[in-house]
Each structure stands twice: as structure tokens, then as C-alpha cells.
């Protein structure tokens, strides 16, 4: 299959593996690890699925960052979605959200109790549902980073054109560049390089990382999700470190352009404005979220249905925050694979299929 098999080529993977070993030997310093953070949940999942971490030399450590939208979504958001469902609104959502524990229950439990919760593969499914249920209110759970924001906002454009009045979105949009900034400023974490997300970058473009890289002088490399892409990305980062030449590198040029997706960016500017968003396990990060502008309040489920997103109280024993910041590996959390499993998740990193804990549980648990 063209454009997929090439990036899953066994021979290529073996060659890159050798190069990584050579570079890591060059960079070897006793008791010092090189920490590379993959920011995106899809990278986390692919790294686990293709067992890439296991292949790396001992002095190279991959840390999973906060790049899973479900994971960084606050408990209060789930509670608000449940409140909407119980008010009789039809909730439409990507599948991952339905098992995320709110304060009292999950959307899956709500559904079993008779609430309407529909799983979508695209925000456009929500439009179809709204058209079929013209006398009911439909809310799409609009969480995610720049990648998912694009189809979400495009959906609002379509709803506007169709003059659909019974659809709105409950937003928890988050931005990647401010998160990179916050993680680099955190004195408790030491990150030597970032493996930057693929699809987010396709939207925001290479240019979005420039201020960050200029300020922090840290290797940032944009790579895709296929195993060969990721390994090549790690090799590229190690090369930058070996050459002492940290810079911004785009290895996913077959998709990611310098300016990104300008149509998406224009839509964001039209509908959304920045605010200081709260990240589950991390806290408030300045200007790290986008919400609907006041003039589009009729699309804002929170305003339209008078539902507040309160700051949630996560389980105290849950160490998802430390996992999200890359301070600990999932298996170092005392609840991992014991009290907290994908069937009975305590923290969000276990519930989302892109969460670090779920990836460890699924592919790497001993």
C-alpha cells in the first residue's frame, strides 16, 4: 500500500536502529539520560504499539507528554456533559469520552440509564443527528488540540450555512505551543528535546514553533506516526544533540507546511478566542485554550443550556499529573494495573486509548 508500507519497512527500521545506537554511544555520559518528550498521544501509542522504547539504547529515554486530549480534559467537563445528557440533550462524541470517569459516573453509565449518547467518527455525524432530531437539542463534545479543533469549527460553519439551530458544542480546546512553553519552564522536569506532533503541526504549521525554539534553544522535530517516521525523528534529534545544533526540523514535510492550514487558522480566528485553560493534572496554563467568542454564544452549549464547567476534584492517589508532565512512568504509579485499569480507570491517562497509562497497560505491562 503506497504511502503506508514504506513507513513500516522492516529493513529501514533496522538501519535507523543502528544509526540511533551509534549516535547514542557518541552522546553517552555516565548516569545521564537524554530525555525526549513526545507531546502527542498518537506518538505515545505508536511508540508502544511498535515497541520502539524497548529498542532504544539505555541512555535514551522517551517521556510521554500531555498530548492526549481526553487525558487533559478536566473532570468538571465530564460532569457538565453528564448534566447536559440528563437534561435530555443528545450528546454526540468521539468514542473515547464515554468511559472517562466524572465525579459520579461516566457517559456510558448515563447512556445505560436512558440518556442519549451517540458515538461519532466525525463531527459531521453530529450534524446528521441534529437534522434527524430537529425538535431536540444536540451537543457535540468538542475537546482536543488544533487537529480536532479544525473539523469541529468547520462543523459549526456547516451548521451556520444549513441554519441549524439545535446544535451546539461544549468546548475544551487546548493549544500545544503554550504547553511546550509551560513544560520547559517547569523546574522539576528536564527535557532535552521535543518530538513534535504530526497532525497538530499540519494545522498550525512549522512557523508556530519558531518563537519557542528561538527562546529555549532545544531540538524540536516534527515527525509523523508511522514507526519508521518516529525512529527517523529520534535519530534526527540525537544528530542535533551530537552536532550541538538545536533547531526546528520538519521531517513530515509530505504533509506539514511552513504556514500550516491557513483555512483552519482563519476559522479559528473567526470563532474562537484565547483564554487561560486548566489542564487536568497540570493546572492553569496561560493562553493555552480557545473558547467560542461571545458573538457565537448560540453555539456554546455551556451558555445555551446554562451548564457550568466547574474545576473537578480528581482522585488524590492518582498520579496522572506526574505522568502527563513526564515526571514518572505510568508503571511507577502505585495504582497502575492494580486499582487503575482500562476496565476501571481512576485517572484519565488510563481511560483514553491514547493515554500513556493505557499504552503502557495495553502493550508493555509485565
Amino acid at each position: 500500500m503506497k504511502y503506508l508500507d514504506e513507513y513500516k519497512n522492516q529493513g529501514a527500521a533496522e538501519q535507523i536502529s543502528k544509526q540511533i545506537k551509534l549516535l547514542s554511544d557518541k552522546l553517552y555520559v555516565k548516569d545521564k539520560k537524554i530525555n525526549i518528550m513526545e507531546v502527542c498521544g498518537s506518538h505515545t501509542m505508536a511508540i508502544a504499539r511498535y515497541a520502539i522504547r524497548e529498542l532504544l539504547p539505555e541512555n535514551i529515554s522517551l517521556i510521554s507528554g500531555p498530548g492526549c486530549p481526553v487525558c487533559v480534559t478536566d473532570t468538571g467537563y465530564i460532569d457538565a456533559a453528564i448534566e447536559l445528557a440528563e437534561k435530555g440533550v443528545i450528546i454526540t462524541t468521539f468514542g473515547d469520552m464515554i468511559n472517562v470517569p466524572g465525579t459520579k459516573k461516566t457517559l456510558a453509565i448515563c447512556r445505560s440509564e436512558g440518556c442519549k449518547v451517540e458515538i461519532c467518527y466525525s463531527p459531521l455525524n453530529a450534524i446528521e443527528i441534529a437534522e434527524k432530531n430537529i425538535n431536540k437539542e444536540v451537543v457535540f463534545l468538542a475537546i482536543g488540540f488544533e487537529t480536532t479543533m479544525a473539523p469541529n469549527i468547520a462543523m459549526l460553519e456547516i451548521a451556520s450555512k444549513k441554519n441549524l439551530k439545535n446544535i451546539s458544542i461544549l468546548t475544551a480546546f487546548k493549544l500545544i505551543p503554550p504547553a511546550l512553553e509551560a513544560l520547559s519552564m517547569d523546574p522539576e522536569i528536564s527535557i532535552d528535546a521535543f518530538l513534535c506532533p504530526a497532525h497538530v503541526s499540519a494545522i498550525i504549521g512549522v512557523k508556530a514553533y519558531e518563537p519557542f525554539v528561538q527562546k529555549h534553544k532545544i531540538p524540536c522535530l516534527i515527525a509523523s506516526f508511522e514507526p519508521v517516521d518516529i525512529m527517523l525523528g529520534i535519530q534526527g534529534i540525537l544528530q542535533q544533540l551530537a552536532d550541538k545544533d538545536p533547531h526546528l526540523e520538519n521531517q513530515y514535510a509530505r504533509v506539514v507546511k511552513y504556514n500550516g492550514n491557513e483555512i483552519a487558522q482563519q476559522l479559528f480566528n473567526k470563532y474562537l478566542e484565547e483564554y487561560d485553560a486548566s489542564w487536568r493534572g497540570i493546572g492553569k496554563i496561560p493562553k493555552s485554550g480557545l473558547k467560542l467568542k461571545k458573538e457565537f454564544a448560540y453555539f456554546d452549549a455551556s451558555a445555551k443550556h446554562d451548564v457550568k464547567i466547574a474545576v473537578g476534584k480528581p482522585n488524590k492517589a492518582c498520579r496522572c499529573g506526574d505522568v502527563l508532565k513526564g515526571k514518572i512512568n505510568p508503571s511507577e504509579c502505585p495504582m497502575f494495573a492494580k486499582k487503575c485499569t482500562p476496565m476501571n480507570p481512576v485517572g484519565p491517562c488510563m481511560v483514553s486509548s491514547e493515554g500513556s497509562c493505557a499504552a503502557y497497560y495495553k502493550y508493555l505491562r509485565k
Partner: protein
Amino acid sequence: MLKNIQLAHGGGGKLSAELIENEIVSRFGEGPLKGLPDAASLDEINGKIIFSTDSYVVQPIEFEGGNIGNLAVHGTVNDISVAGGKAKWLSLALILEEGLEIKVLRRILDTIKKSANECGVKIVTGDTKVVAKGQCDSIYINTSGIGEALPEFNLSRHFIKKGDKILVSGNIGDHGMAVLASREGINIENGPKSDTGTVHRLVQSAYKYAKDVRFMRDPTRGGVATVLNEAVSNTEIGVLLESSKIPLDPGTSAIAELLGIELLNVACEGRMLLIASPEATDKILTDWKKLPEGKNAAIIGEINADKERVSIKTITGGIRLVDVPMGELLPRIC
């Protein structure tokens, strides 16, 4: 001429009789069903009896590569086959939703007839009920099957030994992805096509080496990952799969990649897994490859001493766990 199923088609009156006569008896009315007795009287069977039942609620009822009808025949016949049996008789119970188009029902019944003929089984008894609109989704089918045991087979997961090899009869995950693609309206050129089909010839072809065959199963719901995890649970053995050896259809892989779905967790409806001694698997593979349903068969891994653990060597050369799927991956695929 009515176009749709009416409640009265299940009411026991004239319309019921017409439906049974025109649609059921015309297709299956020979043999034990002749004269529509309340129960089938069957011939004696040699040796042990193998008996299995399954209900079919797939949605959509027609999908690329098949429909609920062939699924209902293949599913039950395959369960009997991989239990080491030769299926002989099937019951056929239909639950129809008021309003179902009669031409759709006819298509399904035609498929049932064709599939039963291919599998060498007879429909010997049955039932038809109609429920009001909204009380079921178009059509539900139950089939139960009776078969005779092939006596040389002595199958149990507890007989699996370290060094045994794992054989799969064809591409994995095609059925689950075809149903998903149909349901979600994902239309791509050369997209996934259900593998719904029969494995009885594969089982009969492996019978030559019956003494060396330890375990057979059709990887339906939960896919290959679930079958293998169940096979090694509470034992001293484990499994190592080789990802590059697993046969995959490119269209199915494309959709799975697009949706981030792991094909090891996706259902097949016309494939089987077989675990046997290394010498036997080589020979069975050669024989399978001569059958159309076994042309993509492959040895995909082997049994090791990694207690209760199913792992896979990925294309990067790293090894990771193959877990069972969590739950609602693809509801109502069979």
C-alpha cells in the same frame, strides 16, 4: 402483492401460512422439513454429537461481501467445525421487524440456502416471528446446529506445547472492518470485504494430521488476540507472533489505519486458527493453500514458555504485548 412484512405474517393465520409456504418451504421444504412437522426427526449419528447455537444481530444486515444470512449459516457451521465436528443439520429461527422489505428477506433466505448447500448442511426445522416496528432491528436470526465428531481429533488448549506453531487460514479482520465501513458509510475503492465463509473444508483437510492438532478456533468477536489470550490463560505457555507474517488485506489495513483500529482485535467470520506441532503445521499449510479459502494461509507465530503472555514482534524488531480488546470496539458485527 405485499412489499413489506406485516405483523399478520407472524400471526398464525393466512398471511403466515403464505409466507412460510412461499419463502421457507419453497427453499428448504425437502427432507425433514417436508410437511412442516413441529419438530424434525433425524437419522442416527455416528459417535459423539456436537451441538452449537448462535444468534445473529449484525447491523447493517447487508454489507460488502455478505449478509446476515450467510453469517448465520457460517457462524454455527464454523463453531461445529472448529470443535472437531462435521455439521449436518441446522435449525433456522427468524425474528422479523414489521416493515422489513420482503425482497430483502428473499435475498437473505437465498443466501442461507446457498451457504447451507456449500457447507453440506440441511435446514431441518425453523420458526418465524414478527415483532412490531421498533422492537427489533430489521431481522434477527438464530441458528442451532448438530454435527458428528470427527473421532481422531482430540482438541484442548491444555495440549498445546512449547514449540507448537500457530496457523491462520487467511487475512484477518476483514469482516469486522467491512461491517464498520458499511455502517459508517466509509466508501473507499477496494475497501474491506467481509470474509464470511466456511472453514469446514479446512478442518477436514487438517484431519489427516489430527493427532498432531492441539487446538482450533474461529476468531470471531475479539479477533485473533482474544482467541490466543484465552488459549494460554492459566497455563505455563505463551505466544510470540511475527507481525510481518500476518496476512492482511490492503483495503482492510487502510481503513484500520485510518480509524486507529488494531486488526488483531477485529472479527473474522470465515477464518480459523489452528495450533499444531511444527511438522504438522507445515503440512497443513501446504494443503490449505490449495483451497480457495486457504490461499492466504500463513504460520504467524509460535508457542513459547512466556507464561500466559501473548506478544508480537513488530516491524521495528521490538516486542510488545497483545492484549484483549476492552469492550465496545465494534458493536453488533455478527
